[in-house]
């Protein structure tokens, strides 16, 4: 396995694989963060998470088209506008969905699974009818393409670095919001005891709506960022949903730190195994490991200690 490579090669392998793992880690965190907020804080199983991501991707596509046609001079910067709009669009749709659908189901959390699954089908068909069944190609500004050569073997993809920075930024923001702000306090209070939180004067409906909107908005940003590395089509969201749930469940649903730890362990295992085995085998072994650990620790890696 390692015998075919020289010592210099091995150094390069570790450097490149380490970096590949870090990129995968950032991608996973970005994917899972929105779901972790919704699932972890509200107990809603949002099967339409992927479709909220793809809405962000479509917004990015239309931004790129618009800037190319109308404002070519600002094209290099369009990606930031697109991400902001993606956040707003997915967040707004999220709040609408919460208001019309989810809020009627807080007492029946398992039914949210069915309802949001239906929602995901509806959204997919809507995208297909409105934007067409074919995949669209998002044109990226030049500065996001290509790679930074470190040595002649080691090259660092620029979009990977971009995703890493973006993930760090969003994670830190979310952590601050959740654990340092007044709103975060209210969210956590509602999670722990909805009736009591209402009794002390917290507008639980508003908190729920904003939390759901925030989760969906982050999904939109993730979808926008993933136009750099993946496809944009009506059903592309399905590509991410399994991995996303895996990370959130494995990390322990109620803990943000757990999500990060789980994304890290899964991405590193996956990317290392992929190098030494074939892609399909790597996936099988990763999944088996996760299943084995969840059998021993059904609550996931990290859990908040709360009295139930």
């Amino acid at each position, binding site marked *: 396995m390692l015998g075919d490579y020289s010592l210099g090669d091995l150094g390069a392998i570790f450097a490149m694989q380490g970096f590949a793992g870090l990129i995968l880690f950032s991608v996973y965190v970005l994917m899972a963060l929105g779901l972790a907020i919704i699932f972890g804080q509200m107990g809603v199983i949002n099967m339409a998470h992927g479709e909220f991501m793809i809405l962000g991707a479509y917004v990015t596509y239309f931004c790129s088209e618009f800037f190319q046609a109308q404002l070519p001079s600002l094209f290099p910067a369009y990606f930031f506008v697109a991400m902001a709009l993606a956040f707003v669009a997915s967040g707004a749709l999220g709040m609408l969905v919460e208001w019309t659908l989810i809020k009627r189901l807080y007492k029946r959390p398992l039914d949210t699974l069915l309802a949001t699954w239906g929602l995901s089908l509806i959204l997919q068909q809507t995208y*297909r009818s409105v934007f067409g069944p074919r995949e669209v190609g998002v044109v990226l500004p030049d500065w996001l393409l290509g790679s930074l050569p470190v040595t002649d073997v080691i090259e660092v993809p620029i979009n990977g670095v971009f995703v890493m920075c973006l993930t760090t930024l969003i994670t830190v923001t979310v952590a601050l919001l959740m654990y340092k702000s007044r709103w975060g306090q209210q969210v956590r209070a509602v999670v722990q005891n909805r009736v009591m939180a209402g009794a002390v004067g917290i507008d639980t409906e508003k908190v729920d709506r904003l939390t759901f909107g925030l989760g969906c908005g982050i999904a939109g940003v993730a979808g926008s960022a993933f136009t750099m*590395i*993946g496809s*944009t089509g009506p059903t592309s969201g399905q590509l991410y949903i399994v991995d996303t749930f895996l990370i959130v469940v494995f990390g322990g649903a109620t803990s943000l730190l757990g999500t990060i730890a789980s994304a890290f362990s899964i991405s590193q295992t996956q990317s290392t195994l992929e190098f030494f085995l074939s892609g399909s085998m790597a996936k099988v072994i990763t999944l088996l490991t996760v299943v084995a650990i969840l059998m021993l620790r059904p609550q996931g890696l990290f859990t908040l200690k709360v009295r139930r």
Partner: protein
Amino acid sequence: MSRDDKTGFHSPLRRKLLMGMAAAPFAGMMPKTAFAQTPATAAVNTTGLAVTDTEVTVGILHSATGTMAISETGSIQAEKLAIAQINEMGGVLGRKIKFIQEDGASDWPTFAEKAKKLLVQDKVAAIMGCWTSASRKAVLPVIEQYNGMLYYPTFYEGLEQSKNVIYTGQEATQQILESINWVVKEKGAKTFYFIGSDYIWPRTSNKIARKHIENHLTGTKVVGEEYFPLGHTQFNSVINKLKLTKPDVIFTDVVGGSNVAFYKQLKAAGINLEKQTLITISVTEDEIDGIGGDNIAGAYSCMKYFQSLDNPNNKEFVAAFKKMWGEKTVIGDVTQAAYLGPWIWKMTVEKAGSFDVDKIAVASEGIEFTKAPEGYVKVHANHHLWSKTRIGLAQKDGQFKVVYESPELIEPNPFPKGYQ
């Protein structure tokens, strides 16, 4: 989804006119007698198919919804265009073609169910349909049991032959062997790295490619073979492996959303396809729409048809297609193969002088379609097509520049000896 959704602002009248104009160039190709005679229904239909004195019904069975809608939309469009053109010319044996469209919904049991509905309830004379091998495998027993006729457009792995199916796409040996010979000869390639999605078509195709490289060519070898689950979106690890192994040729058959992710990440990782030879058997103009021309420019694709083919048949076909479905639509290999289906069926019916499936199955051998957009094709006794193989170089604008064309028609060989 109805036809009007796709065409946007075209009014029905205008579209009809355009379609008529589009079909006009084809009007000269058939013998004049085809217009004059309308043989009695009892004579041309002895098995109770949906044939009346003025109409014949066929089925279109593709996924208009679900994951596969991305790919199958083109096939549906091509089949509807062919049917419209045939009707403009007077139809088949004096009867207009009416189609019933069913949605396979990217779900294989649904395909089988809908095929049964088309055959048993609607009594269609033929079905144009299926795309993935999985859907075809699901439909095959139904078609054989109820003795229907299926025209299947996709290039596929071979190892199948049926009295009740005409395969208008290429089987694996037609597509692969020529491309490997070409890359060895033109690029002096010695080492190959295979990357594919993990299901039957890439695995069978790569097996054929590997046998050819190892047993039929000298001094060439396969240095890596990798498969990824369908829908896989992260290729950084395998790209690192490519950088270390430095193969002369990357040979890929990745499909669906993974395809887009693979090329985007390859480009981001600094692999320049102008310098690194990459040859794919799974990218047509349809896929480039999603991948983006910038990300794949410089790669070679091996297909029997490219939209840019420079011949009069193709120019007419492309113009007609764009008039019917919009200026921005692109036409890939399978779309063209789907277009052949209704035409070959029409010619077979006219040769047999009957809509009966048993007679069509026998009459199919030797049917020649001289006006095919890909050029001349002919139906082989094994119900596959004799066709040429071409290699296209992907351009930034999403089209291919044809750099090679096999000098002769390649014989279809769905059960290749020594390649299994």
